[in-house]
């Protein structure tokens, strides 16, 4: 074997100089890349702006046909009635909120409890098995959930509550709750896992039990992340369409009753989009007004989430 030469037969500096000439091209790419990246970012911003503008424009047209006062205060939503048509969105809002509320009642306790289990009690192995399963649950198409609600959950509920109608708020509410549980569980678990280990140790060293550490240290420290996950999940429930369209019925109703047929804002938009109304009619424009209201709702939820998580943040 040849001995290594005492000096390199090549000079690294020289090679760098040579490469530098080629590099000039690279430098140009360096300048172009951020510009391309900016463009991609602008695409999504522009899309959002475009959607809002379209919504707004058509909504204004709608308010030429129907007064804002009627829209927000009338208690009936009879858009298809030729003679006594009434466009009061409250029944649709009530349908949406009932379903979202039931979903939250189901999802918040289950989601947070599973997050506590996963982050504080489960061994690494258990977590590695359970978390992917939870995430699969989040990936099931919502139409499947819709049929699950209509053909499986509703019959069971009707055995328990005989007065329950075939289409009702309860069954889709529960199923949407099941659908958003993994979201709360997974995001809350992330928030809890990122609470530093040293904080848990501090509490354990004072003789705290696992439950005391979870409830009095980990949850308060992770509360902003937990609230964000809940709000995100509830926004999802408010915007959920297929499950309520399939299992919720199409009877807008302003009431507290969860056993009867309802219609949510989203389900109404589906109904009209399916071709029940011609272009340019009041009904056609009404879906934009409803869509805009829906948009306001989710926007408010997001603002609320930001406010709450700032307010309750425990900084560490």
């Amino acid at each position: 074997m040849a001995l290594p030469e005492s000096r390199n037969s090549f000079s690294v500096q020289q090679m760098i100089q040579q490469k530098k000439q080629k590099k000039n091209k690279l430098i140009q790419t360096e300048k172009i890349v951020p510009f391309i990246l900016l463009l991609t970012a602008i695409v999504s911003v522009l899309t959002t702006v475009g959607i809002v503008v379209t919504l707004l424009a058509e909504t204004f047209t709608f308010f030429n046909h129907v007064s804002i006062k009627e829209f927000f205060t009338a208690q009936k939503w009879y858009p298809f009635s030729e003679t006594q048509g009434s466009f009061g969105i409250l029944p649709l809002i009530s349908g949406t909120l009932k379903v979202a509320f039931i979903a939250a009642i189901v999802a918040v306790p289950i989601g947070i409890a599973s997050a506590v289990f996963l982050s504080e009690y489960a061994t690494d192995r258990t977590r590695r098995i359970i978390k992917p399963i939870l995430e699969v649950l989040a990936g099931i198409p919502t139409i499947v959930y819709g049929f699950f609600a209509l053909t499986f959950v509703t019959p069971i509920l009707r055995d328990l509550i005989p007065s329950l109608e075939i289409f009702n708020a309860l069954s889709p509410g529960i199923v949407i709750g099941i659908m958003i549980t993994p979201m709360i569980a997974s995001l809350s678990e992330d928030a809890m896992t990122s609470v530093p280990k040293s904080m848990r140790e501090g509490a354990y060293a004072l003789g705290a039990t696992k439950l005391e550490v979870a409830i009095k240290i980990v949850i308060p420290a992770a509360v902003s992340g937990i609230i964000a996950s809940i709000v995100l999940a509830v926004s999802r429930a408010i915007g959920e369409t297929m499950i309520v369209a399939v299992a919720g019925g199409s009877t807008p109703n302003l009431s507290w009753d969860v056993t009867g047929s309802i219609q949510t804002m989203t389900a109404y938009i589906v109904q009209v989009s399916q071709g029940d109304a011609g272009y340019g009619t009041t009904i056609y424009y009404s879906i934009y007004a409803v869509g805009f209201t829906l948009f306001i709702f989710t926007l408010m939820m997001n603002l609320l989430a930001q406010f709450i998580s700032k307010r309750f943040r425990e900084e560490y």
Partner: protein
Amino acid sequence: MNTTMVKLNNQQNQTAANAESQRKEAVYHTKDLNLWYGTNHALKNINLEINEKEVTAIIGPSGCGKSTYIKTLNRMIELVPDVKTSGEIKYRGRNILQKGYGVEELRTKVGMVFQKPNPFPKSIFENVAYGPKIHGIKDKKILNQIVEKSLKGAAIWDEVKDRLNENAFGLSGGQQQRLCIARCLAIEPDVILMDEPTSALDPISTLKVEELVQELKKEYSIIIVTHNMQQAARISDKTAFFLNGEVIEYSETDQIFSNPADQRTEDYITGRFG
């Protein structure tokens, strides 16, 4: 220069310390303790007796098992997965490694201060009140007294008395560490374990914590792990030298630093390795 000073100082105190230590009872008897992390044999046949109302320092190079040992004394080591132990550690006569020994009860008696200050993300008041609260003390008046007493005990009361409701994370590192000591004092433990409590602190904060330890040993038994040999010499009554998971030497601090029995101890304290 420095070591000779320490030696001279210590020799003067030696007789007094010896006489005093004979009157003291042991809090911890460690007998044939072995500990494994998976297959890594981290502690080997540890036999130590630790006295009450003394400061016992544990010194040794990184990875020698000193932190592992101190965390075994309140079983915090169990938070590490895959830990196995054999042998026994008797705390006040009862083997804490035995099945059925309530770990929460143990940690209520044996407090711990960590390497990095780890206050809770709560107010200064809530940090100190947390321990008493989880053990069922709810009376606001009593809690107020406990908080004040503990903060005074940890020599931080004057600095924080006007901002008890502010977040603990607004304090400096040294203040946070003294707050953690106050949090520990709030449940009036019997023993305080300190795992390199000053390694993340500046010299002035370190000095304050050291003075505090001197003060606290009147009422508490303190076991302190330290990287800093001068610190061990300054504040401890007894010193144990750990190396590769074994106790090489354990005796009066003056003895260890002036006249170590083992060559390896001498090499370590004179800075030849570690």
